[in-house]
């Protein structure tokens, strides 16, 4: 059974006399221990979808099932999900990390005692034990974000919704949160992650779903997407400039001469050796197969659907 099954979600809003479709026929599934990156430009429908899953926005059509149960029929199902929806704005700033964790633990249905035990464990896991008695308002943004994620995990929910968990964080804090997200998924919790940091998606996500203008335009693994959009382009950089004779030969072999010391060609690996024969014995600096990255894939997909 899937941890999350959202089927054919549809949501429209009224703006004056107009009806605006925010989300149209969106379906998402998440298995145990899986990370699904849910990508889209601002206003594409990501947050509306995440909030429909979290029970904060009621879909006009479609259904949400968490561990097979409907959060709109049974509010106890909300105890099976944790969410970081607005970054560090999820917390009570006058309370310390331990007090926030304890409070939200009880709010998620834990007893005071269990909530305190879990809070202590999470503070250790997030390396925040030394800040347990510091009011959240006095913590750095990275630490606040870690507390916010810990709060979402306090009741050990099978499903975690992370909306922009690294927004505005420095490199070190982002790396720490990335590591924690991977560890959480490895422990068997499913994560729906929305972010604009596509390098993070490439390394973290098991699957990627891209939403554009309220509709899912592609769903695949990051690897498949990158392969699909990568041409087998080789790039060679030389230590010395090309002579005229070699330039003519390369041009006749359909090699693109970027400058006198850089060439590229979109051909098969066999063509690589033919090109290398032409270049022999010129000293080489770099031979690289160029691949598209997820950012290029994302931009291409979104532009193609405009």
């Amino acid at each position, binding site marked *: 059974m899937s941890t999350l099954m959202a089927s054919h979600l549809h949501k429209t809003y009224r703006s004056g006399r107009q009806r605006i479709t925010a989300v149209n026929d969106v379906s998402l599934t998440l298995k145990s221990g899986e990370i699904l990156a849910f990508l889209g430009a601002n206003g594409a429908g990501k947050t509306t979808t995440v909030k429909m899953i979290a029970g904060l*926005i009621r879909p006009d059509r479609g259904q949400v099932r968490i561990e097979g149960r409907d959060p709109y029929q049974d509010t106890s199902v909300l105890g099976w999900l944790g969410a970081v929806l607005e970054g560090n704005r999820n917390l009570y700033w006058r309370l310390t990390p331990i007090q926030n964790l304890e409070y939200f633990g009880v709010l998620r249905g834990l007893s005071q005692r269990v909530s305190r035990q879990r809070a202590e464990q999470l503070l250790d896991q997030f390396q925040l034990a030394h800040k347990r008695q510091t009011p959240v308002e006095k913590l750095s943004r990275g630490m606040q974000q870690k507390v916010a994620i810990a709060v979402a995990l306090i009741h050990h929910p099978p499903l975690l919704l992370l909306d922009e968990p690294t927004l505005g964080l420095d490199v070190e804090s982002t790396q720490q949160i990335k590591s924690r997200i991977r560890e959480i998924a490895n422990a068997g919790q499913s994560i729906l992650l929305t972010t604009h940091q596509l390098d993070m998606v490439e390394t973290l996500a098991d699957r990627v779903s891209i939403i554009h203008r309220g509709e899912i335009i592609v769903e695949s693994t990051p690897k498949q997407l990158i392969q699909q959009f990568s041409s087998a382009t080789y790039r060679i950089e030389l230590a010395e400039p090309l002579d005229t004779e070699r330039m003519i030969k390369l041009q006749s072999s359909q090699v693109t001469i970027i400058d006198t010391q850089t060439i590229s060609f979109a051909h098969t690996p066999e063509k690589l050796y033919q090109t290398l024969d032409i270049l022999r014995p010129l000293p080489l600096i770099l031979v690289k197969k160029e691949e598209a990255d997820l950012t290029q894939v994302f931009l291409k997909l979104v532009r193609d659907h405009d």
Partner: protein
Amino acid sequence: MIELLKAELKRTWIQSTRYPLEALGRIFITTCFFYALFLGSKYIAEPPASFGNRLDSIVIGYILWTLVIFIVNDIAITLQIEVQTGTLQQVLLSPYEPVKIFLARALASLLLRLTTIITILLIILVLTGSQLAFPISLLLPLLSVILGAYGLAFMMGSLAVLLKRIQQLLVILQFGLLFLLATPIEDWQGIPALLGLWLPMTAGAGLLRQVMAQGMALDGFRAGLALLVGLLYFIVGLACFRWAVNHGKQQGNLGTY
């Protein structure tokens, strides 16, 4: 629910005492206010909820007036603050129903406020050697007033969920509360008297006036009726709040600013 109430009590207490100077300032103002009442009650204007000109009537009148204003504003103000700070959405991700959470919050803040006021009063009583009389029988009409106030509080909370910012409405409402608490419906006759019984808090406040200012015995039937009306407003308030939260989910603007 008890665990939730305990957690809300703890959260409210920590939040209100995080800055000692702020907390001490609040206690100082309340202490000065009540101390002034004890020192010169006869020189001070009667409270809007007037129960007579004896010291205990004036003190209880002021306590009730400030409590009612506090209760009626509490839920709506809390909601507006939590929407601004972004914590409301986290709160609504709870398996507890929103109505239960906000009821626990309202009770927690009322308990803390009552505890503060009663502690200050007791200290002043000891210091001045004064005495206050509050017959136990008055708890019934007092409860009816508090229930009615909570009913109104949840209705205001519903408006805060739907309209987001209702500060001006809350200011205007204070005049309405003045009418509800100060109108002597016990002196009304005929149809107005019957209609007046259905106003929130009015019947309970009238009973308090009769017993404390006029020295009359508590009318058990009217006290029961006042309690029933208070309960009715409380239930209607909860229903409105539940509807408003569902409507906010439908509109997709719950917890957004």
